[in-house]
């Protein structure tokens, strides 16, 4: 046991060390702390996970449309098929352009295997940015950085930003930390929608200016309409298997400040609060698959269990 007088003497030195670590140490030299962080998170998980599950059960994320189980299953199947179809169409259009440009024959593997892993949320990952989720699945389950997470149905939830052996951290698309996301307002069942770049507002919605386009036949401007579906279309920052997943529906359309002919849309996810989901579905691609131009075929999901 250290005598109290010694504790008093070393206190100023400890505080000085903390000041250096907190303020002046570049983050590239703090990688070693991650191991202790991971260990600490595993230690508190037995307490935080049951509490988090209970709280999320009492106040679930909820879906904005009331439905029973049968309708929900049908809706999810419909969304799965729709997403696959749109992804195929987008992919076909891209490949067609590629073929036209290069004038070569491209052989395409149309079967991209995606393993889906259900994993429970066991707490909040950060107290500095609200909504960042700690999820109980990690490298052992094949999760890696940039793995896509979805919520109920094919609602895009977010992306894995850091991963340890047994846990990972998911930043939802509605969290400020996730940054901008490219999206498409779906005008019909084709991929000829209006592009937009959406930014999280901090209140569970995303907002951004929609592309200005006119109808070729009538020259009338094509405006987004409240209720239209908005899907992910951001090949620069998101894996190919995530394209055309649902971001949400258009909740409000208003003229852009200073540019009255352009529209600013507000998009709300189909899950009322993405930060309150109790379980996420991680879509794990086979290594290197996401770099291949191919369409997605989803395998049956497996359920993640055990203590982290």
């Amino acid at each position, binding site marked *: 046991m250290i005598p109290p007088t010694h504790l008093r003497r070393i206190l100023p030195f400890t505080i000085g060390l903390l000041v250096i670590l907190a303020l002046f140490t*570049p983050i590239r030299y703090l990688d070693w702390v991650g191991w202790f962080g991971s260990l600490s*998170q595993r230690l508190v998980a037995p307490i935080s996970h049951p*509490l*988090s599950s209970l*709280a999320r059960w009492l106040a679930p994320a909820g879906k904005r449309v009331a439905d029973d189980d049968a309708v929900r299953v049908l809706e999810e199947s419909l969304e799965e098929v729709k997403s696959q179809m749109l992804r195929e169409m987008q992919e076909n259009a891209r490949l067609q352009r590629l073929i036209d440009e290069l004038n070569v024959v491209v052989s395409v593997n149309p079967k991209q295997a995606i393993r889906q892993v259900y994993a429970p949320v*066991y*707490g*909040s990952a950060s107290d500095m940015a609200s909504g960042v989720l700690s999820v109980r699945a990690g490298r052992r389950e094949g999760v890696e950085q940039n793995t896509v997470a979805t919520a109920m149905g094919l609602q895009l939830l977010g992306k894995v*930003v*850091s991963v340890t052996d047994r846990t990972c951290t998911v930043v939802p698309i509605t969290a400020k930390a996730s940054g901008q996301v490219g999206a498409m307002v779906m005008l019909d069942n084709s991929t000829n929608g209006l592009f937009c770049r959406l930014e999280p507002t901090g209140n569970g919605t995303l907002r951004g200016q929609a592309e200005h386009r006119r109808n070729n036949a009538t020259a009338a401007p094509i405006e987004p309409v409240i209720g239209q579906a908005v899907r992910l279309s951001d090949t620069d920052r998101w894996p190919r298997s995530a394209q055309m997943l649902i971001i949400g529906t258009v909740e409000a359309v208003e003229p852009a400040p200073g540019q009255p002919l352009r529209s600013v849309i507000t998009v709300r996810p189909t899950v009322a609060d993405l930060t309150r989901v109790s379980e996420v579905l991680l879509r794990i691609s086979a290594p290197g698959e996401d770099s291949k131009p191919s369409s997605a075929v989803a395998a049956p999901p497996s359920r993640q269990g055990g203590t982290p």
Partner: protein
Amino acid sequence: MNWLAFAAVAWVFLGLEKGLRDALELGSTGASPSFVFGLLTFIAISAQSTTALWAAIALGLAMDLVFNVPLQGGAGTVNIPGPHALAYVLGTQFILSLRGVMVRRNPLSMGFLALVGFLVCSATLLAIFTTKATLGVPIEWDATRKLLEGLGSSLYTGVLATLLGLVLIPLAPFLGLPSHQQRRFGRRA
């Protein structure tokens, strides 16, 4: 103070903080209560000043390890040791300077001290992370929003600490801290 009992209670409170933080958030305001600071307030009221400051460092470092700091644009997360520890030390020091004029056995005193202590703590965290963001560290940081969140969280932590006081004050002997309720019924020396 019995450090082993403290570690056990701290473990439970860290679990509460991690598990219930999102669930207890006030809508989308980002304001949520801190269980860990409630515990620290109780220790700062009851323990010797050096003990309280070491407890602040221990709990702060645990918070730094359990909670990550997201980087800009979804580029990952990082554990930065120190910000919470320093913030808790300053918050504790503020409580230590005020505890002499408070009725220590009253849960309302604990609520008030938690409120003002957490304000100091939030201001310190704000200063540290704003400095880091200004120095070019690519952390996701919105100072104005965090200031408002800090104010809301302080009020919320004050309310929670009042309730925690009802649980923690009887737990004082288990933590090896002087029980302020003993004197009401015990024989005075």
